[in-house]
Protein backbone atom coordinates (compact mmCIF):
# COMPACT_ATOMS: atom_id res chain seq x y z
CA UNK A 1 0.00 0.00 0.00
CA UNK A 2 1.31 3.37 -0.93
CA UNK A 3 1.30 5.53 2.14
CA UNK A 4 2.92 8.58 0.67
CA UNK A 5 0.12 10.57 -0.83
CA UNK A 6 -2.93 9.16 0.84
CA UNK A 7 -4.45 11.18 3.58
CA UNK A 8 -1.46 13.44 3.71
CA UNK A 9 -3.31 16.67 4.09
CA UNK A 10 -0.05 18.33 5.04
CA UNK A 11 2.59 18.79 2.41
CA UNK A 12 5.96 20.04 3.43
CA UNK A 13 8.44 21.40 1.00
CA UNK A 14 11.96 20.15 1.29
CA UNK A 15 13.39 16.85 2.39
CA UNK A 16 12.52 15.15 5.67
CA UNK A 17 15.42 15.17 8.13
CA UNK A 18 14.56 11.67 9.33
CA UNK A 19 12.79 9.30 6.99
CA UNK A 20 11.71 5.67 7.25
CA UNK A 21 10.56 3.62 4.26
CA UNK A 22 8.98 0.17 4.33
CA UNK A 23 10.06 -0.64 7.88
CA UNK A 24 9.17 -4.16 8.99
CA UNK A 25 9.66 -5.64 12.44
CA UNK A 26 8.40 -9.06 13.38
CA UNK A 27 8.46 -10.72 16.79
CA UNK A 28 7.77 -14.37 16.09
CA UNK A 29 4.29 -14.47 14.58
CA UNK A 30 3.47 -10.90 15.55
CA UNK A 31 4.16 -8.21 12.99
CA UNK A 32 4.75 -5.04 14.97
CA UNK A 33 5.75 -2.93 11.96
CA UNK A 34 4.19 -3.74 8.62
CA UNK A 35 5.99 -1.81 5.86
CA UNK A 36 5.71 1.39 7.80
CA UNK A 37 6.72 4.80 6.44
CA UNK A 38 7.74 7.76 8.51
CA UNK A 39 8.74 11.37 7.86
CA UNK A 40 10.06 14.03 10.19
CA UNK A 41 10.71 17.49 8.76
CA UNK A 42 13.23 19.99 10.08
CA UNK A 43 12.05 22.22 12.90
CA UNK A 44 8.68 20.57 13.52
CA UNK A 45 7.01 18.82 16.40
CA UNK A 46 5.60 15.59 15.03
CA UNK A 47 3.23 13.74 17.33
CA UNK A 48 2.86 9.99 16.92
CA UNK A 49 -0.42 8.59 18.18
CA UNK A 50 -1.98 5.19 17.94
CA UNK A 51 -3.91 2.66 19.93
CA UNK A 52 -2.15 0.26 22.24
CA UNK A 53 -0.41 -2.41 20.20
CA UNK A 54 -0.44 -0.34 17.02
CA UNK A 55 3.34 -0.51 16.88
CA UNK A 56 4.23 3.02 18.00
CA UNK A 57 6.95 1.90 20.34
CA UNK A 58 8.42 -0.49 17.78
CA UNK A 59 8.60 2.42 15.35
CA UNK A 60 10.30 4.64 17.91
CA UNK A 61 12.68 1.89 18.95
CA UNK A 62 13.64 1.37 15.32
CA UNK A 63 14.27 5.11 14.88
CA UNK A 64 16.33 5.35 18.07
CA UNK A 65 18.37 2.19 17.54
CA UNK A 66 16.84 0.17 20.37
CA UNK A 67 15.62 -2.47 17.86
CA UNK A 68 16.81 -3.20 14.36
CA UNK A 69 14.06 -3.44 11.70
CA UNK A 70 13.98 -6.66 9.67
CA UNK A 71 13.37 -4.77 6.44
CA UNK A 72 13.23 -1.20 5.23
CA UNK A 73 15.44 1.81 5.17
CA UNK A 74 16.05 4.76 7.47
CA UNK A 75 17.66 7.90 6.13
CA UNK A 76 18.97 10.84 8.11
CA UNK A 77 19.38 14.06 6.12
CA UNK A 78 19.06 12.04 2.95
CA UNK A 79 21.78 9.54 3.79
CA UNK A 80 20.92 5.93 4.60
CA UNK A 81 21.82 5.06 8.20
CA UNK A 82 21.81 1.90 10.25
CA UNK A 83 21.59 1.99 14.05
CA UNK A 84 22.93 -1.15 15.73
CA UNK A 85 22.25 0.26 19.21
CA UNK A 86 20.95 3.38 20.96
CA UNK A 87 24.58 4.46 21.28
CA UNK A 88 24.99 4.49 17.50
CA UNK A 89 21.82 6.53 17.04
CA UNK A 90 23.12 8.94 19.65
CA UNK A 91 26.36 9.30 17.76
CA UNK A 92 24.25 10.57 14.81
CA UNK A 93 22.60 13.17 17.05
CA UNK A 94 19.32 11.35 17.75
CA UNK A 95 18.43 11.45 21.44
CA UNK A 96 15.51 9.66 23.05
CA UNK A 97 13.81 10.44 26.35
CA UNK A 98 12.35 7.11 27.38
CA UNK A 99 9.19 6.80 29.37
CA UNK A 100 11.27 5.33 32.20
CA UNK A 101 13.68 8.29 31.78
CA UNK A 102 16.71 5.96 31.89
CA UNK A 103 18.31 7.68 34.86
CA UNK A 104 20.21 6.19 37.78
CA UNK A 105 18.35 7.35 40.90
CA UNK A 106 21.31 7.23 43.30
CA UNK A 107 23.64 9.20 41.03
CA UNK A 108 23.77 12.97 40.72
CA UNK A 109 22.13 15.13 38.05
CA UNK A 110 25.53 15.83 36.49
CA UNK A 111 26.51 12.15 36.53
CA UNK A 112 23.24 11.24 34.87
CA UNK A 113 23.47 13.89 32.17
CA UNK A 114 26.88 12.60 31.14
CA UNK A 115 26.23 8.88 31.62
CA UNK A 116 28.04 7.04 28.84
CA UNK A 117 29.74 10.18 27.47
CA UNK A 118 31.73 11.50 30.41
CA UNK A 119 34.30 14.23 30.02
CA UNK A 120 37.81 13.57 31.19
CA UNK A 121 40.36 16.01 32.54
CA UNK A 122 42.83 17.34 30.01
CA UNK A 123 46.42 16.14 30.17
CA UNK A 124 47.85 13.14 31.93
CA UNK A 125 45.17 13.04 34.66
CA UNK A 126 42.56 12.39 32.00
CA UNK A 127 44.46 10.22 29.55
CA UNK A 128 46.43 8.03 31.94
CA UNK A 129 44.47 8.23 35.20
CA UNK A 130 41.11 8.62 33.46
CA UNK A 131 39.97 11.24 35.94
CA UNK A 132 36.58 12.80 35.26
CA UNK A 133 36.44 16.53 34.70
CA UNK A 134 33.73 17.15 37.27
CA UNK A 135 33.88 20.97 37.25
CA UNK A 136 33.38 21.03 33.46
CA UNK A 137 30.51 18.53 33.59
CA UNK A 138 28.80 20.37 36.42
CA UNK A 139 29.15 23.69 34.63
CA UNK A 140 27.70 22.26 31.42
CA UNK A 141 24.83 20.58 33.25
CA UNK A 142 24.01 23.79 35.10
CA UNK A 143 24.04 25.78 31.85
CA UNK A 144 21.74 23.34 30.10
CA UNK A 145 19.26 23.30 32.97
CA UNK A 146 19.41 27.10 33.05
CA UNK A 147 18.67 27.34 29.36
CA UNK A 148 15.47 25.43 29.90
CA UNK A 149 14.63 27.47 32.98
CA UNK A 150 15.07 24.56 35.36
CA UNK A 151 17.35 26.14 37.90
CA UNK A 152 14.90 25.74 40.72
CA UNK A 153 17.09 22.69 41.07
CA UNK A 154 19.71 24.10 43.35
CA UNK A 155 22.41 21.54 43.64
CA UNK A 156 23.67 19.87 40.49
CA UNK A 157 25.21 17.15 42.66
CA UNK A 158 22.02 16.08 44.34
CA UNK A 159 20.92 12.54 43.53
CA UNK A 160 18.18 12.29 40.92
CA UNK A 161 15.98 10.35 43.36
CA UNK A 162 15.61 13.48 45.49
CA UNK A 163 13.92 15.28 42.57
CA UNK A 164 10.20 15.41 41.90
CA UNK A 165 8.70 13.72 38.85
CA UNK A 166 8.59 16.97 36.91
CA UNK A 167 12.17 17.82 37.74
CA UNK A 168 13.36 14.39 36.67
CA UNK A 169 11.51 14.74 33.39
CA UNK A 170 13.09 18.18 33.02
CA UNK A 171 16.58 16.80 33.56
CA UNK A 172 15.92 14.02 31.05
CA UNK A 173 14.66 16.51 28.46
CA UNK A 174 17.63 18.79 29.15
CA UNK A 175 19.98 15.86 28.63
CA UNK A 176 18.36 14.99 25.30
CA UNK A 177 18.27 18.62 24.16
CA UNK A 178 21.89 19.16 25.16
CA UNK A 179 23.20 16.27 23.10
CA UNK A 180 20.50 15.71 20.46
CA UNK A 181 21.81 17.82 17.64
CA UNK A 182 19.49 16.37 14.97
CA UNK A 183 16.37 14.83 16.51
CA UNK A 184 14.86 14.54 19.99
CA UNK A 185 12.37 11.74 20.65
CA UNK A 186 10.05 12.00 23.67
CA UNK A 187 8.12 8.92 24.76
CA UNK A 188 5.04 9.80 26.85
CA UNK A 189 6.76 12.72 28.60
CA UNK A 190 3.66 13.80 30.51
CA UNK A 191 2.17 10.42 31.35
CA UNK A 192 3.43 10.37 34.94
CA UNK A 193 3.10 14.06 35.67
CA UNK A 194 0.61 16.33 37.37
CA UNK A 195 -1.20 19.15 35.61
CA UNK A 196 1.29 21.88 36.44
CA UNK A 197 4.31 19.76 35.75
CA UNK A 198 2.87 18.67 32.40
CA UNK A 199 2.45 22.30 31.44
CA UNK A 200 6.10 22.96 32.23
CA UNK A 201 7.21 20.00 30.13
CA UNK A 202 5.10 21.19 27.18
CA UNK A 203 6.83 24.56 27.45
CA UNK A 204 10.16 22.73 27.50
CA UNK A 205 9.22 20.93 24.30
CA UNK A 206 8.45 24.24 22.59
CA UNK A 207 11.73 25.70 23.90
CA UNK A 208 13.65 22.84 22.38
CA UNK A 209 11.91 23.28 19.02
CA UNK A 210 12.55 27.00 19.05
CA UNK A 211 16.23 26.15 19.07
CA UNK A 212 15.73 24.40 15.74
CA UNK A 213 15.68 20.78 16.86
CA UNK A 214 12.79 18.71 15.47
CA UNK A 215 10.89 16.61 17.99
CA UNK A 216 9.01 13.35 17.81
CA UNK A 217 6.40 13.25 20.56
CA UNK A 218 4.67 10.01 21.46
CA UNK A 219 1.65 10.60 23.63
CA UNK A 220 -1.77 9.32 24.55
CA UNK A 221 -2.79 12.71 25.81
CA UNK A 222 -4.89 14.21 22.97
CA UNK A 223 -5.12 17.72 24.44
CA UNK A 224 -1.35 17.87 24.74
CA UNK A 225 -0.81 16.47 21.26
CA UNK A 226 -3.25 18.91 19.67
CA UNK A 227 -1.72 21.77 21.57
CA UNK A 228 1.94 21.42 20.65
CA UNK A 229 2.15 19.27 17.52
CA UNK A 230 2.66 20.72 14.04
CA UNK A 231 1.64 17.45 12.44
CA UNK A 232 0.17 14.24 13.81
CA UNK A 233 1.26 10.84 12.54
CA UNK A 234 -1.57 8.38 13.18
CA UNK A 235 -0.33 4.84 13.54
CA UNK A 236 -2.64 1.89 13.03
CA UNK A 237 -2.02 -1.83 12.59
CA UNK A 238 1.74 -1.48 12.29
CA UNK A 239 1.84 1.30 9.74
CA UNK A 240 1.15 4.94 9.14
CA UNK A 241 -2.55 5.40 8.49
CA UNK A 242 -2.32 9.11 7.76
CA UNK A 243 -0.74 12.35 8.80
CA UNK A 244 -3.04 15.18 9.82
CA UNK A 245 -2.64 18.77 10.87
CA UNK A 246 -4.21 19.51 14.24
CA UNK A 247 -6.12 22.47 12.75
CA UNK A 248 -7.92 20.37 10.16
CA UNK A 249 -9.40 17.70 12.37
CA UNK A 250 -10.88 17.44 15.82
CA UNK A 251 -9.59 15.28 18.61
CA UNK A 252 -12.51 12.93 18.23
CA UNK A 253 -11.65 12.52 14.52
CA UNK A 254 -8.11 11.61 15.46
CA UNK A 255 -9.30 9.09 18.01
CA UNK A 256 -11.74 7.66 15.46
CA UNK A 257 -8.90 7.28 12.93
CA UNK A 258 -6.54 5.58 15.32
CA UNK A 259 -9.14 3.16 16.63
CA UNK A 260 -10.46 2.39 13.17
CA UNK A 261 -13.95 3.75 13.86
CA UNK A 262 -13.56 6.11 10.92
CA UNK A 263 -11.25 6.34 7.94
CA UNK A 264 -9.71 9.57 6.71
CA UNK A 265 -10.77 10.58 3.18
CA UNK A 266 -8.90 8.78 0.47
CA UNK A 267 -7.61 6.00 2.68
CA UNK A 268 -8.73 2.47 2.23
CA UNK A 269 -7.86 -0.01 4.87
CA UNK A 270 -7.13 -3.53 3.79
CA UNK A 271 -8.65 -5.95 6.19
Amino acid at each position, binding site marked *: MDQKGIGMTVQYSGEPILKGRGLVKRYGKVTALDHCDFDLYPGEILAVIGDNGAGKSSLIKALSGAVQPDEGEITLEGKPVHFGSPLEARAYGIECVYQTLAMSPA*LSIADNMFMGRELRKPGVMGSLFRQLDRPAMEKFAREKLNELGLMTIQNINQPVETLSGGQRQGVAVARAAAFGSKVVILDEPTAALGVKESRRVLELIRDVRSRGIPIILISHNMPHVFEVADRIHIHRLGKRLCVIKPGDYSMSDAVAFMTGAKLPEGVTEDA
Partner: protein
Amino acid sequence: MASDTKAATSFEEGLKGASEKVAEFHEDKGALKRLQHWLHQTPSAVPMIVLVVALIIFGLLSPNFFKATTLSTILQQIAIVGIIGCAQSIVVLTAGIDLSVGAIAVFSSVLMGQMTFRYGIPAPLSILIGLGLGTAMGFINGWLVAKVKLPPFIVTLGTWQILLASNFIFSANETIRSSDIAAQAPALQFWGNAIQPGGVKVLYAVFLMVALVAIMAYVLRQTAWGRHVYAVGDDPDAAELAGVQTKRILIQVYALAGLFCAIAGWVMIGRFGSVSPTASTGQLGNIQSITAVVIGGISLFGGRGSIVGMFFGALIVGVFEMGLKMVGTDPQWTFFLIGLLIILAVAVDQWIRKASA
Protein backbone atom coordinates in the same frame (compact mmCIF):
# COMPACT_ATOMS: atom_id res chain seq x y z
CA MET B 1 -10.04 23.59 15.76
CA ALA B 2 -10.60 26.70 17.81
CA SER B 3 -13.19 25.05 19.98
CA ASP B 4 -11.02 22.01 20.25
CA THR B 5 -8.04 23.95 21.47
CA LYS B 6 -10.23 25.65 23.97
CA ALA B 7 -11.61 22.37 25.14
CA ALA B 8 -8.12 21.01 25.20
CA THR B 9 -6.82 23.49 27.65
CA SER B 10 -9.93 24.63 29.47
CA PHE B 11 -9.40 22.15 32.29
CA GLU B 12 -6.21 23.98 33.08
CA GLU B 13 -7.95 27.29 33.59
CA GLY B 14 -8.29 26.32 37.18
CA LEU B 15 -4.55 26.83 37.43
CA LYS B 16 -4.92 30.58 37.15
CA GLY B 17 -3.91 32.18 40.38
CA ALA B 18 -2.23 29.01 41.56
CA SER B 19 1.41 29.17 42.48
CA GLU B 20 3.59 29.49 39.41
CA LYS B 21 6.33 27.46 40.97
CA VAL B 22 6.74 24.03 39.51
CA ALA B 23 8.44 21.23 41.31
CA GLU B 24 10.69 23.27 43.48
CA PHE B 25 13.18 21.57 45.69
CA HIS B 26 12.32 22.00 49.33
CA GLU B 27 15.07 21.70 51.87
CA ASP B 28 13.64 19.84 54.78
CA LYS B 29 14.85 21.41 57.99
CA GLY B 30 13.95 18.66 60.45
CA ALA B 31 17.04 17.42 62.30
CA LEU B 32 16.26 13.77 61.69
CA LYS B 33 15.56 14.42 58.01
CA ARG B 34 18.84 16.26 57.68
CA LEU B 35 20.71 13.41 59.33
CA GLN B 36 19.02 11.01 56.94
CA HIS B 37 19.99 13.21 54.01
CA TRP B 38 23.57 13.52 55.19
CA LEU B 39 23.90 9.76 55.60
CA HIS B 40 22.43 9.40 52.13
CA GLN B 41 25.25 11.54 50.74
CA THR B 42 27.98 10.06 52.95
CA PRO B 43 27.39 6.33 53.15
CA SER B 44 30.65 5.57 54.96
CA ALA B 45 29.75 7.85 57.90
CA VAL B 46 27.85 5.19 59.88
CA PRO B 47 30.66 2.62 60.01
CA MET B 48 33.14 5.40 60.77
CA ILE B 49 31.10 6.52 63.78
CA VAL B 50 30.76 2.91 64.99
CA LEU B 51 34.50 2.43 64.57
CA VAL B 52 35.40 5.56 66.54
CA VAL B 53 32.96 4.65 69.32
CA ALA B 54 34.35 1.10 69.49
CA LEU B 55 37.92 2.43 69.66
CA ILE B 56 37.02 4.80 72.51
CA ILE B 57 35.18 2.10 74.48
CA PHE B 58 37.95 -0.47 74.14
CA GLY B 59 40.55 2.21 74.88
CA LEU B 60 38.78 2.95 78.17
CA LEU B 61 38.25 -0.72 79.07
CA SER B 62 41.75 -1.89 78.31
CA PRO B 63 44.79 0.31 78.99
CA ASN B 64 46.92 -1.64 76.54
CA PHE B 65 44.53 -1.18 73.65
CA PHE B 66 46.02 2.03 72.24
CA LYS B 67 49.47 0.58 71.85
CA ALA B 68 51.03 0.66 68.38
CA THR B 69 51.56 -3.10 68.45
CA THR B 70 47.88 -3.75 69.14
CA LEU B 71 46.79 -1.52 66.29
CA SER B 72 49.32 -2.97 63.86
CA THR B 73 48.15 -6.48 64.80
CA ILE B 74 44.56 -5.52 64.04
CA LEU B 75 45.58 -4.20 60.62
CA GLN B 76 47.60 -7.33 59.99
CA GLN B 77 44.63 -9.53 60.80
CA ILE B 78 42.26 -7.73 58.50
CA ALA B 79 44.70 -7.48 55.56
CA ILE B 80 43.30 -10.51 53.73
CA VAL B 81 39.65 -9.76 54.50
CA GLY B 82 40.27 -6.18 53.39
CA ILE B 83 41.62 -7.23 50.01
CA ILE B 84 38.88 -9.82 49.44
CA GLY B 85 36.47 -7.13 50.63
CA CYS B 86 37.58 -4.92 47.71
CA ALA B 87 36.52 -7.74 45.40
CA GLN B 88 33.23 -8.24 47.23
CA SER B 89 32.53 -4.48 47.28
CA ILE B 90 32.61 -3.95 43.53
CA VAL B 91 30.46 -7.04 42.97
CA VAL B 92 27.89 -5.97 45.57
CA LEU B 93 27.82 -2.45 44.07
CA THR B 94 26.49 -4.02 40.87
CA ALA B 95 23.70 -5.62 42.96
CA GLY B 96 25.47 -8.98 42.78
CA ILE B 97 27.18 -11.17 45.32
CA ASP B 98 30.29 -13.32 45.06
CA LEU B 99 30.35 -16.45 47.24
CA SER B 100 33.42 -17.80 45.44
CA VAL B 101 35.89 -15.14 46.63
CA GLY B 102 37.52 -17.30 49.30
CA ALA B 103 37.71 -20.29 46.98
CA ILE B 104 39.40 -18.21 44.26
CA ALA B 105 41.91 -16.87 46.82
CA VAL B 106 42.85 -20.33 48.15
CA PHE B 107 42.94 -21.95 44.72
CA SER B 108 45.12 -19.12 43.37
CA SER B 109 47.58 -19.47 46.25
CA VAL B 110 47.74 -23.23 45.66
CA LEU B 111 48.30 -22.67 41.92
CA MET B 112 51.13 -20.22 42.64
CA GLY B 113 52.76 -22.70 45.03
CA GLN B 114 52.34 -25.78 42.86
CA MET B 115 53.52 -24.02 39.69
CA THR B 116 56.77 -23.32 41.49
CA PHE B 117 57.25 -26.54 43.44
CA ARG B 118 55.65 -29.16 41.19
CA TYR B 119 56.46 -27.72 37.75
CA GLY B 120 59.63 -25.78 38.62
CA ILE B 121 58.41 -22.50 37.12
CA PRO B 122 60.27 -19.47 38.56
CA ALA B 123 58.28 -17.99 41.44
CA PRO B 124 57.59 -14.54 39.88
CA LEU B 125 56.18 -16.23 36.77
CA SER B 126 54.11 -18.60 38.92
CA ILE B 127 52.66 -15.61 40.71
CA LEU B 128 51.70 -14.03 37.38
CA ILE B 129 50.09 -17.31 36.28
CA GLY B 130 48.19 -17.50 39.57
CA LEU B 131 46.96 -13.92 39.20
CA GLY B 132 45.93 -14.64 35.61
CA LEU B 133 44.04 -17.80 36.51
CA GLY B 134 42.30 -16.05 39.43
CA THR B 135 41.17 -13.35 37.00
CA ALA B 136 39.94 -16.08 34.63
CA MET B 137 37.88 -17.67 37.44
CA GLY B 138 36.27 -14.29 38.09
CA PHE B 139 35.70 -13.86 34.36
CA ILE B 140 33.75 -17.14 34.26
CA ASN B 141 31.51 -15.87 37.08
CA GLY B 142 31.00 -12.61 35.18
CA TRP B 143 30.28 -14.34 31.90
CA LEU B 144 27.66 -16.59 33.51
CA VAL B 145 26.03 -13.61 35.23
CA ALA B 146 26.12 -11.17 32.30
CA LYS B 147 25.74 -13.35 29.22
CA VAL B 148 23.88 -16.44 30.45
CA LYS B 149 21.89 -14.19 32.80
CA LEU B 150 22.04 -16.49 35.82
CA PRO B 151 21.57 -15.02 39.29
CA PRO B 152 24.96 -14.13 40.86
CA PHE B 153 24.08 -15.97 44.08
CA ILE B 154 23.54 -19.25 42.21
CA VAL B 155 26.50 -18.83 39.87
CA THR B 156 28.97 -18.17 42.67
CA LEU B 157 27.43 -20.77 44.98
CA GLY B 158 28.26 -23.23 42.20
CA THR B 159 31.73 -21.94 41.38
CA TRP B 160 32.58 -21.78 45.11
CA GLN B 161 32.05 -25.55 45.35
CA ILE B 162 33.64 -26.27 41.97
CA LEU B 163 36.75 -24.21 42.63
CA LEU B 164 37.22 -25.48 46.15
CA ALA B 165 36.90 -29.09 44.96
CA SER B 166 39.28 -28.41 42.05
CA ASN B 167 41.66 -26.93 44.57
CA PHE B 168 41.68 -30.13 46.65
CA ILE B 169 41.91 -32.41 43.62
CA PHE B 170 44.70 -30.40 41.96
CA SER B 171 46.79 -30.05 45.12
CA ALA B 172 46.09 -33.65 46.26
CA ASN B 173 45.57 -32.08 49.66
CA GLU B 174 49.25 -31.38 49.88
CA THR B 175 50.59 -28.46 51.91
CA ILE B 176 53.81 -26.74 50.89
CA ARG B 177 55.83 -26.04 54.01
CA SER B 178 56.83 -22.56 55.03
CA SER B 179 60.53 -23.41 55.36
CA ASP B 180 60.65 -24.81 51.81
CA ILE B 181 59.06 -21.66 50.41
CA ALA B 182 61.43 -19.41 52.38
CA ALA B 183 64.41 -21.34 51.06
CA GLN B 184 63.40 -21.83 47.42
CA ALA B 185 60.80 -19.21 46.46
CA PRO B 186 60.84 -16.22 48.83
CA ALA B 187 58.91 -14.13 46.28
CA LEU B 188 55.78 -16.09 47.25
CA GLN B 189 56.14 -14.80 50.82
CA PHE B 190 56.85 -11.21 49.75
CA TRP B 191 53.83 -9.67 51.52
CA GLY B 192 54.83 -11.28 54.81
CA ASN B 193 57.84 -8.98 55.02
CA ALA B 194 57.53 -6.10 57.42
CA ILE B 195 58.97 -2.72 58.20
CA GLN B 196 59.69 -2.18 61.88
CA PRO B 197 59.75 1.50 62.76
CA GLY B 198 60.49 1.69 66.49
CA GLY B 199 59.93 -2.03 66.95
CA VAL B 200 56.35 -1.98 65.66
CA LYS B 201 55.95 -4.59 62.95
CA VAL B 202 53.87 -3.49 59.96
CA LEU B 203 53.48 -6.08 57.21
CA TYR B 204 53.81 -5.12 53.54
CA ALA B 205 50.39 -6.75 53.22
CA VAL B 206 48.87 -3.92 55.27
CA PHE B 207 50.28 -1.31 52.89
CA LEU B 208 49.00 -3.33 49.94
CA MET B 209 45.50 -3.46 51.40
CA VAL B 210 45.46 0.30 52.08
CA ALA B 211 46.80 0.98 48.58
CA LEU B 212 44.15 -1.21 46.93
CA VAL B 213 41.36 0.44 48.91
CA ALA B 214 42.70 3.88 47.95
CA ILE B 215 43.01 2.96 44.28
CA MET B 216 39.50 1.50 44.14
CA ALA B 217 38.06 4.50 45.98
CA TYR B 218 39.59 6.70 43.29
CA VAL B 219 38.45 4.48 40.42
CA LEU B 220 34.88 4.23 41.68
CA ARG B 221 34.54 7.92 42.44
CA GLN B 222 36.64 9.66 39.81
CA THR B 223 36.40 7.63 36.62
CA ALA B 224 33.62 6.95 34.13
CA TRP B 225 34.07 3.21 34.67
CA GLY B 226 33.42 3.65 38.39
CA ARG B 227 30.25 5.66 37.75
CA HIS B 228 29.10 2.95 35.36
CA VAL B 229 29.56 0.30 38.06
CA TYR B 230 27.19 2.28 40.29
CA ALA B 231 24.74 2.85 37.43
CA VAL B 232 24.62 -0.87 36.61
CA GLY B 233 23.88 -1.70 40.25
CA ASP B 234 21.33 1.09 40.59
CA ASP B 235 19.15 0.32 37.58
CA PRO B 236 20.65 -1.86 34.84
CA ASP B 237 17.91 -1.11 32.29
CA ALA B 238 18.28 2.63 32.74
CA ALA B 239 22.06 2.33 32.53
CA GLU B 240 21.80 0.34 29.30
CA LEU B 241 19.47 2.91 27.70
CA ALA B 242 21.69 5.75 28.87
CA GLY B 243 24.57 4.21 26.97
CA VAL B 244 26.39 2.05 29.52
CA GLN B 245 27.54 -1.31 28.20
CA THR B 246 26.17 -3.16 31.18
CA LYS B 247 27.24 -6.69 30.22
CA ARG B 248 30.79 -5.60 29.64
CA ILE B 249 30.90 -3.75 32.96
CA LEU B 250 29.55 -6.82 34.80
CA ILE B 251 32.14 -9.14 33.26
CA GLN B 252 34.92 -6.66 34.04
CA VAL B 253 33.74 -6.33 37.64
CA TYR B 254 33.71 -10.08 38.29
CA ALA B 255 37.06 -10.54 36.53
CA LEU B 256 38.61 -7.72 38.57
CA ALA B 257 37.15 -9.31 41.69
CA GLY B 258 38.89 -12.54 40.65
CA LEU B 259 42.17 -10.65 40.33
CA PHE B 260 41.78 -9.15 43.81
CA CYS B 261 41.08 -12.60 45.24
CA ALA B 262 44.20 -13.97 43.55
CA ILE B 263 46.20 -11.09 45.06
CA ALA B 264 44.68 -12.04 48.43
CA GLY B 265 45.83 -15.61 47.73
CA TRP B 266 49.38 -14.38 47.25
CA VAL B 267 49.14 -12.33 50.45
CA MET B 268 47.91 -15.44 52.30
CA ILE B 269 51.20 -17.19 51.51
CA GLY B 270 53.10 -14.29 53.05
CA ARG B 271 50.80 -14.09 56.04
CA PHE B 272 50.68 -17.82 56.89
CA GLY B 273 54.05 -18.81 55.44
CA SER B 274 52.82 -22.05 53.92
CA VAL B 275 50.55 -22.89 50.98
CA SER B 276 47.60 -24.87 52.27
CA PRO B 277 44.58 -25.98 50.22
CA THR B 278 42.61 -26.32 53.46
CA ALA B 279 43.09 -22.67 54.53
CA SER B 280 39.94 -21.48 56.29
CA THR B 281 39.60 -18.57 53.87
CA GLY B 282 38.19 -21.02 51.32
CA GLN B 283 35.13 -21.61 53.49
CA LEU B 284 34.93 -18.35 55.44
CA GLY B 285 36.30 -15.74 53.02
CA ASN B 286 32.91 -15.04 51.48
CA ILE B 287 31.10 -14.62 54.82
CA GLN B 288 33.88 -12.45 56.23
CA SER B 289 33.99 -10.21 53.18
CA ILE B 290 30.19 -9.90 52.97
CA THR B 291 30.18 -8.97 56.67
CA ALA B 292 32.73 -6.21 56.06
CA VAL B 293 30.77 -4.96 53.06
CA VAL B 294 27.42 -4.91 54.88
CA ILE B 295 28.74 -3.34 58.09
CA GLY B 296 30.55 -0.87 55.85
CA GLY B 297 27.22 0.40 54.57
CA ILE B 298 27.31 -0.92 51.01
CA SER B 299 23.76 -1.76 50.00
CA LEU B 300 23.14 -5.37 49.00
CA PHE B 301 20.61 -3.99 46.50
CA GLY B 302 23.45 -2.32 44.61
CA GLY B 303 24.43 1.17 43.54
CA ARG B 304 25.01 2.60 47.00
CA GLY B 305 27.93 2.72 49.38
CA SER B 306 31.67 3.18 49.17
CA ILE B 307 34.73 1.00 49.36
CA VAL B 308 36.08 3.13 52.20
CA GLY B 309 32.99 2.05 54.14
CA MET B 310 33.96 -1.58 53.53
CA PHE B 311 37.42 -0.80 54.91
CA PHE B 312 35.83 0.64 58.06
CA GLY B 313 33.60 -2.45 58.22
CA ALA B 314 36.64 -4.74 58.13
CA LEU B 315 38.34 -2.58 60.77
CA ILE B 316 35.28 -2.77 63.03
CA VAL B 317 35.38 -6.57 62.91
CA GLY B 318 39.13 -6.51 63.64
CA VAL B 319 38.74 -4.03 66.50
CA PHE B 320 35.91 -6.07 68.07
CA GLU B 321 37.88 -9.31 67.91
CA MET B 322 41.01 -7.78 69.38
CA GLY B 323 39.25 -5.56 71.90
CA LEU B 324 37.04 -8.29 73.32
CA LYS B 325 40.02 -10.60 73.54
CA MET B 326 41.98 -8.00 75.50
CA VAL B 327 39.05 -7.29 77.79
CA GLY B 328 38.97 -11.04 78.41
CA THR B 329 35.42 -11.98 77.45
CA ASP B 330 34.23 -15.15 75.81
CA PRO B 331 35.21 -14.86 72.11
CA GLN B 332 31.64 -15.75 71.13
CA TRP B 333 30.66 -12.21 72.12
CA THR B 334 32.52 -11.04 69.02
CA PHE B 335 30.18 -12.94 66.74
CA PHE B 336 27.19 -11.96 68.85
CA LEU B 337 28.00 -8.27 68.44
CA ILE B 338 28.93 -8.56 64.77
CA GLY B 339 25.61 -10.25 64.14
CA LEU B 340 23.86 -7.33 65.77
CA LEU B 341 25.90 -4.87 63.70
CA ILE B 342 24.96 -6.59 60.45
CA ILE B 343 21.25 -6.28 61.21
CA LEU B 344 21.70 -2.70 62.34
CA ALA B 345 23.65 -1.82 59.20
CA VAL B 346 20.95 -3.18 56.90
CA ALA B 347 18.24 -1.42 58.92
CA VAL B 348 20.11 1.87 58.54
CA ASP B 349 20.49 1.23 54.80
CA GLN B 350 16.74 0.74 54.45
CA TRP B 351 16.09 3.89 56.41
CA ILE B 352 18.50 5.91 54.26
CA ARG B 353 16.81 4.59 51.12
CA LYS B 354 13.51 6.00 52.34
CA ALA B 355 15.12 9.46 52.36
CA SER B 356 15.19 9.38 48.62
CA ALA B 357 11.46 8.99 48.21
